[in-house]
């Protein structure tokens, strides 16, 4: 039984600022950048910012993980006359692509007509995401985590990667290949932050930050804003660009994952996972599709092992086979043919959080939209379905499938 709202909404506009190395967006502000991204997304869609009447945030409507975004402030700044929908998914970056599902909820309930989802991020020293967990006030829950010295997201993720290596023989070379394969995709991208080709020797020479993870297993720390506009399929026909139909979308998870790597109570095999079993199951049920139907996969890549694990959970390979799948080149994009390599599906043709920019997952939505429009820089030939993911972190973990018009 397919999803009742399949293809009933579409992303019609994407907009972004420049991408800045951490802190370098100063003296701009998070609202300055957010407004630029929204105005650019409206221009892309061919609508006025005054037509926006909905906001579907994620990460608890935060800018990064610190300051809160406020819809009334956006109305004041951008001049929208009416707002009928203002809501946020809980927790953090895990909800990035799920925000498009939240927008769909607002649109299908006829609360709004043009709904923005966005992230705006400025990592000044006091709001650097890599250290934000360690600076949190100690409370009843994190008193069972912080004293161990697991204070950064990389620390937290390394414990899951270690278990995956133990259970399945996964190697550091496979993590290296995730970084190398996706770095190849930024050489031709003007806005990308990391573009220099990467070799396995470069990877192995990268300093160990949280053994088994090296600096090059960690994503970028960047500033900037990205906004996308979702509307109903009927209205999408009148927009400037070819619609990117919302074919399936999920945001949630199962009890075995719950607080994930801030809890560490997950039983095997969920411990050594990215928490995407549930959101994957849900989008495959909604659409009747499976991994082999995806033409491109834009997988949230804050840390390299989490890409490998998502490939397993979405079914691009079996659980525990991510190492061999990745090392056989199957993540790579073939610039000659515009297809995958060795029967694989191209992953993160935009370079992802690891290489292009880290705007907490929003760039993956932009790339999914451009791929199904047929306008991507590293365009996959005949791209009909694009998978994008959010997370992996605490529930809700999210998943999105866009279909070309």
């Amino acid at each position, binding site marked *: 039984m397919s999803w009742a709202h399949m293809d009933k909404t579409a992303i019609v506009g994407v907009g972004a600022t420049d991408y800045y190395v951490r802190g370098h967006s100063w003296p701009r502000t998070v609202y300055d950048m957010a407004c630029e991204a929204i105005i650019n997304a409206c221009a892309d869609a061919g609508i006025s910012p005054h037509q926006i009447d909905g906001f579907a945030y994620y990460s608890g409507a935060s800018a990064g993980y610190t300051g809160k975004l406020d819809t009334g402030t956006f109305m004041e700044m951008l001049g929208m006359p009416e707002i009928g929908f203002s809501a946020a998914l809980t927790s953090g970056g895990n909800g990035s692509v799920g925000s498009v599902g939240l927008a769909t909820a607002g649109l299908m309930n006829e609360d709004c007509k043009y709904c923005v989802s966005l992230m705006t991020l400025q990592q000044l020293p006091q709001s650097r995401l890599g250290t934000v967990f360690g600076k949190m006030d100690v409370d009843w829950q994190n008193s069972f985590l912080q004293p161990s010295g697991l204070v950064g997201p990389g620390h937290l993720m390394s414990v*899951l990667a270690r278990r995956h290596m133990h259970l399945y023989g996964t190697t550091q070379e496979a993590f290296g290949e995730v970084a190398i394969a996706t770095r190849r995709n930024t050489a031709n991208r003007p806005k990308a932050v990391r573009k220099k080709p990467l070799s396995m020797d470069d990877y192995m020479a990268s300093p160990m930050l949280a053994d088994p993870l090296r600096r090059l297993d960690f994503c970028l720390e960047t500033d900037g804003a990205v906004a996308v506009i979702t509307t109903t399929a009927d209205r999408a026909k009148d927009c400037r660009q070819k619609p990117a139909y919302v074919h399936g979308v999920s945001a949630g998870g199962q009890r075995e994952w719950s607080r994930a790597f801030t809890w560490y109570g997950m039983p095997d095999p969920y411990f050594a996972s990215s928490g995407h079993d549930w959101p994957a199951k849900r989008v495959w049920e909604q659409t009747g599709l499976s991994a082999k139907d995806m033409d491109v996969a834009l997988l949230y890549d804050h840390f390299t092992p989490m890409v490998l694990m998502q490939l397993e959970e979405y079914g691009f390979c079996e659980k525990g086979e991510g190492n061999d799948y990745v090392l056989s080149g199957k993540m790579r994009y073939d610039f000659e043919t515009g297809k995958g390599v060795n029967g694989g599906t191209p992953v993160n043709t935009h370079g992802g959080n690891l290489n292009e920019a880290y705007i907490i997952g929003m760039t993956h939505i932009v790339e999914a939209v451009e791929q199904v429009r047929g306008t991507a820089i590293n365009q996959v030939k005949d791209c009909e379905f694009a998978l994008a993911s959010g997370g992996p972190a605490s529930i809700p973990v999210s998943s999105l499938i866009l279909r070309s018009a």
Partner: protein
Amino acid sequence: MSEPIKYGPALLLPGEQLHIAMNNDTEGFWQAAKEHRLTACQCAKCGHFRMPPGPVCPECSSFEKHYPDLPGTGTVFSYAICNRNPANGEPYVYVPVVVDIDGAPGARLVSNVTGCDAEDVHIGMKVEVVWTEINDGWVYPHFRKA
């Protein structure tokens, strides 16, 4: 594969850096630690263990709980090796670890392994609890090779 890294002794972060907070549900765990007793939160009705302690049993919805004395041993489920003190970025080797607690099926404690070289820690290693005083007179349970 590159050569294994020699890290040397696995330390505990300096006690003055370690702070805890508690509520009505978790206080039982930390009071027991003060008396050098390792415990975990157990449902008084159905016997299910849960960590960190929360107000209600996820299996039977009972609010009744207790904190039984456990053997103080466990098994390393997974770990990381960190090489900088997060407080100042100086070189400092410590091994955060997730331990399956003996006598409390399903309950885990996130702590540290100390008393051996970091590179000697491994998944499946049997460990026993060690106690170190931290801020405000509280006591932190960590582990050494059993």
